[in-house]
């Protein structure tokens, strides 16, 4: 973990209620896809934990959905605004388990961390398939970005307005070596039921985001874990629903 000042370099609407923000600053404490940053916002007591979509040494990209007052405030930030970030939080995905043909499954606001993961795995020579699940066509983002990385992309929408009608599990057919997933809990559970092994990234309301307050603890088969620090990524074999 590091506490760093970042400057907003862009902040744009890319899909329904969904914003992409680029931040410039020292991001070298981020080491794995699936980690998150915790952003201090003026006027709000708690920081906002947001997963990292992509990063370079001096740049972080996040994609966030406006769901409350904090994210609504974020959507109004202009380039040039300085923000205080706790950087490099969480365990992130273990990329060594991917095998040759990993499947990456993201639902809604769970799609962004799959981008950094896909980038990493493709650079590593893996044949990556990405399933992005949304409610409706207006929410879809990053279909082309994943394709540009070289991933095979499948889109599902609950209303069938684009891609496969249904849920991510309706597009999971194929021969995959491993599964990485991030999304709402019902989606994670459905994916869990359809795979033999994988890693799942969970969400929880957090106090600190770095393991001090015990606000986000969950039970696992190997004891209590803090989603912010021991997670957010849990191995399939340790999850207790």
């Amino acid at each position, binding site marked *: 973990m590091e*506490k760093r000042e970042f400057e907003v370099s862009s902040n744009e609407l890319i899909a329904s209620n969904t914003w992409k923000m680029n931040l410039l600053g020292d991001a070298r404490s981020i080491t794995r896809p699936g980690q998150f940053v915790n952003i201090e916002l003026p006027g709000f007591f708690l920081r906002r934990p947001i997963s990292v979509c992509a990063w370079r040494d001096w740049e972080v990209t996040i994609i966030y959905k406006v769901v409350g007052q904090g994210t609504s405030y974020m959507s109004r930030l202009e380039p040039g605004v300085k923000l205080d970030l706790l950087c490099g939080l969480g365990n992130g995905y273990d990329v060594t388990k991917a095998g040759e043909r990993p499947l990456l499954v993201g639902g809604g606001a769970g799609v962004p961390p799959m981008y950094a993961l896909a980038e990493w795995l493709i650079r590593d020579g893996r044949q990556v398939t990405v399933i992005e699940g949304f409610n409706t066509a207006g929410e879809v983002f990053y279909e082309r970005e994943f394709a540009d990385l070289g991933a095979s992309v499948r889109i599902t929408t609950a209303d069938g307005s684009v891609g496969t009608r249904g849920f991510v599990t309706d597009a999971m057919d194929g021969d995959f070596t491993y599964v990485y997933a991030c999304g709402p809990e019902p989606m994670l559970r459905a994916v869990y039921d359809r795979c033999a092994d994988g890693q799942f990234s969970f969400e929880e*309301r957090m*106090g*600190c985001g*770095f*393991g*001090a*307050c*015990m606000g986000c603890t969950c039970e696992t088969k190997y004891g209590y874990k803090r989603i912010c620090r021991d997670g957010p990524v849990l191995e399939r074999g340790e999850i207790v629903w």
Partner: protein
Amino acid sequence: MVDTKVTLSGLTLDNPVIPASGTFGFGYEFAEIYDIDILGSLSFKGTTREPRFGNPTPRIAECPSGMLNAVGLQNPGIDKVIEEELPKLRQVFHKPVVANISGFSIDEYVECCGRIDQEEQVGIIEVNISCPNVHNGGMSFGTSPESAAEVTRQVKAVTTKPVYMKLSPNVTDIAAIAQACEEAGADGISLINTLMGMRIDLRRRVPVLKNVTGGLSGPAVLPVALRMVWQVYEAVSVPIIGMGGVSTARDVIEMMLAGATAVEVGAANLKNPLAAKEIIEKLPPLMEELGIGRLSDIIGGAH
């Protein structure tokens, strides 16, 4: 050169800043980003006899100028604290610690305090009779002078180290409870624990916290904490560790002027992991600005 030292029951601290129990774990998350030996001391995560998972999530809710928590005393239990956590803490913090002990029965307080009293690392035992987030224990011991005195008496009978009773603000007369603790032998008083509160999710029309209620902390509670430290200072002669919403060096001075000898910093650590460090660094220049040569001279200075 200003002097930031303060003394609690014979234990001299380099400065009055102590991270509050439950906001600092056992120190090592913070030791990753600064040298925590600069702290006056630290109050470790509230410890009970048995390991505890705590309450179901969500356990955290945001508030204007603060937060609610309903963690519910998650901790590994006193055996693991003594066998695993204290040795790890010893690697990163080399000063006496404040051992925060909680319980669900007088027997449990007595057993845990008696055991932690044997640990060389422990400088002060802080007995939490004020946790608002557990049922059939915690705060129920701290809301009447009689039960607070009873816990104090029985813990004092099995300990040799200074015992500070940590009091709840969710009472009508905190001074009476502090007095009862002092008469029962308490070496000091810690206050305040969190204020009970709740929040409701507008869309789902249910409480945000699964536990329904939680404890409010953060800058929102500072004025309440100051008032209670003020009242307790007038009522007892033992030292006070003041806490509740302290986020800046100015808050530390204010708390000491109200009557605190040392000050715990809680929720501020969660928002800014460097909060305690920044407060300690800003104390000397602030003391110079305010014409304070020796910090211990200002304790209760506003009375």
